[in-house]
């Protein structure tokens, strides 16, 4: 459990982080809470040449009302999301889901930006970001760009963030009315075998899936079935359409498809759809 040798630099500002990233090249990794990256490094499954530590950039830790959206700084820790008054008012699903990530230690160190940037389809928050039509604010040497969540997740542990870029903010739509998060796992601290997020941002329900493919997914077939007037139970039947879940020690792909159907139905029912 000793990582391979690496260089380490602590960034004092976002600009410094970006210039450090440029300087160290594409084998450098950004270190935030470290709760995904460090275990991989200890197992030597990840061997970055350098770590650019952004963990002390307090300027990136906030939850703000930004009109029709909520703006969340990338360094906001799960625990801060969990107890945010702003989120309790305008997007309570985010607080709830942040409270389901890992265990208390993980939640006090892990950040929403780290979770989203890691691009793990088994993580809880990326699916919520997808369901709430998130906008990801990415800053690089050329300035800032905004990527919609639907274009952000490129593949397993792959996102739209370039090697010299930093995710700085996540903008989410506010929710209205009922919502649900169905996390199915065997142990409290485990990743979801399958998870389902249901939320309404503009009256129509959005449904997103955790661990049903290489990236978090919107259950598009469910959403269009609902739009066409299907009941939750009917719509849930198409929950696994277009999904390509893996088979692993937790569950076969077949079982994951089944779980997705059950959990989507339960999620829609709990959300009052």
């Amino acid at each position: 459990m000793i990582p391979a040798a690496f260089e380490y630099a602590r960034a004092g500002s976002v600009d410094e982080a970006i210039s450090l990233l440029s300087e160290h090249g594409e084998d450098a990794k950004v270190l935030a809470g470290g709760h995904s990256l460090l275990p991989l490094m200890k197992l030597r499954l990840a061997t970055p040449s350098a770590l650019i530590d952004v963990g002390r950039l307090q300027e990136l830790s906030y939850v703000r009302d930004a009109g029709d959206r909520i703006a969340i700084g990338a360094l906001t820790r799960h625990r801060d999301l969990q107890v945010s008054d702003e989120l309790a008012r305008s997007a309570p699903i985010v607080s709830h889901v942040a409270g389901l990530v890992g265990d208390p230690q993980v939640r006090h160190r892990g950040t929403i930006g780290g979770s989203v940037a890691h691009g793990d389809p088994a993580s809880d928050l990326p699916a919520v970001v997808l369901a709430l039509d998130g906008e990801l604010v990415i800053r690089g040497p050329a300035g800032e760009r905004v990527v919609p969540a639907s274009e952000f997740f490129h593949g397993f542990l792959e996102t739209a963030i370039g090697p010299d870029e930093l995710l700085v903010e996540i903008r989410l739509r506010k929710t209205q009315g009922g919502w649900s998060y169905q996390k199915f796992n065997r142990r409290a601290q485990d990743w979801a075998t399958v998870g389902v997020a249901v939320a309404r941002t503009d009256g129509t329900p959005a449904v997103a899936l955790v661990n049903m493919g290489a990236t978090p997914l919107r259950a598009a077939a469910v959403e269009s079935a609902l739009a066409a007037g299907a009941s939750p139970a009917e719509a849930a039947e198409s929950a696994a359409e277009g999904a390509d879940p893996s088979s692993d020690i937790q569950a076969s792909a077949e079982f994951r498809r089944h779980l997705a159907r059950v959990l989507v139905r339960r999620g829609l029912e709990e959300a009052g759809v």
Partner: protein
Amino acid sequence: MSILGNRVLRKEDPKFLTVGGSYVDDLPLEGAVHVVYARSTMAHARIGGVDKSEAEAAPGVLAVYTAADIDLAPIPNGAPFGNPAMTRPWLADGVVRYVGEPVAAVVAQTRAQAVDAAEMVIVDYDPLPAVVDPEAALRDETLLFPEAGTNLVMTFPDALAGIMLPAEAADQDEGIFDDCEVVVARRIVNQRVAPCPLEVRAGAASWTEGRLTQWATTQAPHGVRDTLAQSLGVDPTAVRVVSPDVGGGFGAKIGAYPEELFLAWISRALGRPTRWVETRSESMTNLGHGRAQVQDVRIGGTRDGRILAYRLDVIQDSGAYPAIGAFLPMFTRTMLTGVYDVPKVYFKARSVATNTTPTVAYRGAGRPEATAAIERAIDLFAAEIGMDPADVRRRNLVGKDRFPFTTPTGTVYDVGDYERALDLVLEAADYKSLRKEQARRRQSGDASQLGIGLSVYVEITNGLPGSEFGSVQVRPDGKVTVRTGTSPHGQGHVTSWAMLVSEQLGVAVDDIEVVHGDTDVVPRGVGTYGSRSLQTGGVAVNQAAGQVVEKARQLAADLLEASPDDVVLDKAGGRFHVAGTPAVGRTWSELAQAAGEGGLSAETDFTAPGPTFPFGAHVVVAEVDTETGRVRISRVVAVDDAGRILNPLLAEGQIHGGIAQGVAQALMEEVVYDEDGNPVTSNLADYEFVSAAELPAFETIHMETPTPLNELGAKGIGESGTIGSTPAVQNAVVDALAHLGVRHVPMPATPERVWRAIAESRAGGNS
């Protein structure tokens, strides 16, 4: 008032809760170099060659050793009476037999340097077919040890007939089911699990003037000392083994592993102290695994619930290098019929080598496997004849007036009252109301169905012959030093042995120091395993304390010029005086000073007349989500009778931990290999190690049936919870689905397995 039977707080805890324990890897060891093992990435392969040149040249590296460098004799087969051709090399020699097997030892100035250099050891593997499934291994198509000519390690009872068992023990089978109206058979897999002590394996070795000090995280330091001496070819007096705090063992730390023993050899070769600690991933593939039995059960009886015959055929997976795990079917046979009076039985077991991590003793060690088999069999039988499983059990229990009771396999149970345990647990659980609630749920077609699982068990503790050492010494300051050959690693002997001595001497528990885990300080010892400690080591300490009191009484009588018969010990005041004249007396301190050099002391080696047989009954209530297959345990109600209880707090701790591990086997944990022998559960993210969040509060019910075999009336409690809970949980899961036609769900009853069992049953299959 007696201190015995009270919830005395653990003397150990203030340290653990404040500054923390001191484990092997915490030891400061001046000038020590670090050892890291390069390990096999293949389950079965010939080693074409090992290129260690790059590793040898890496920064800080002192040496890299492979099999070619070692002058030690191979390690004998660890299963008593097992195939003698199945020996183990210290480092893989010409062939690797499981993923994780040490191939080379890298020694460097720092641990990080050793880890880096171990990655540079290049092994040229020529793959061989991997034998992962023990049943396939029995076909001998690929041999792990070609020189043995077979993968079969040993057969039970044949291999022990005329040795540990009577010659006629090679049981006969034919016709035992002839009188049965109903016979049910099923294959049951008692899956491989990982013991997962919080402290992984670690060791350190240092030679001074020809004498070795070895630090070991072990359950049996004297055994490690003897193994070291034998392996290195030195006299046992030239070896000191020290076990500081040990963070759990569960049976897997009874012996010493090659990686630990080899530290002493390296230290001698280099003239430097050595140290080593494994990672969790290494631990998951090298600390021995437990269970790993494939069982074929057959049970038969009458339609009104009388069991007449029972047969169990076992395939024991021994892993790559047979160790004590290969021998454990012996105990499965010992406890074959459990709490039931079964007239006709048959048992056969075969231990077989596979390309997997060796199996060892794990909490229960052969007995949980026996209990799981018969308790599942009883439920299968009850389902077949349509009778309540509680009634079938009651009908067949050994009656309380029949002890000592000799089972068909020759085991002699000391004492028991199984029906009372069953009554108590059913009453505490409110069994009738549970069945009503179950009927209501079934009626309503609720997605969440209720399962009620039962088990009634008996197990054997202190099952291997052996004595245990205990001594008590009153020091001139009036405080007491107790030395014990037991080796606690979480059990609380420091507290309980102090209670025993306090009771006899009238010295406060806080003034009694209990010393263990150092072979230079404790002259002899067997160790802590098999739930043996209180009934052997505790009794030894108790007897030594009694002898010290008698010596002190004699001495006080001399000093007081009175007859010893007239001198009494005032335990409240901790002093001796003549009966009726308390004003004149002698304190422990005065007597110890008067006794001269060494104070007042006595030592004992106690050998119990035989093993004891704790028993109990568990009811588990499971909520099963029939849509997702998820099982939630809502209640565990447990009667565990371990004879007289010395400290209920400690006993409950053992029961709680035991139940947690038992539930974990039933629902969560399984060591899994892919078909090529690659482990796929080698960290605690992939291996479903249970946590408190998955468990309900346990309801433990008091019951004490003292054993006549020792003066304390005590039996062992360390393994009971594990033995009783596993089948109760599995039975509860099946019971929740019984109305859907499900008869069995394999362990661990994962959501997917439960879902599949329901789906197959609905599709008309026979799950």
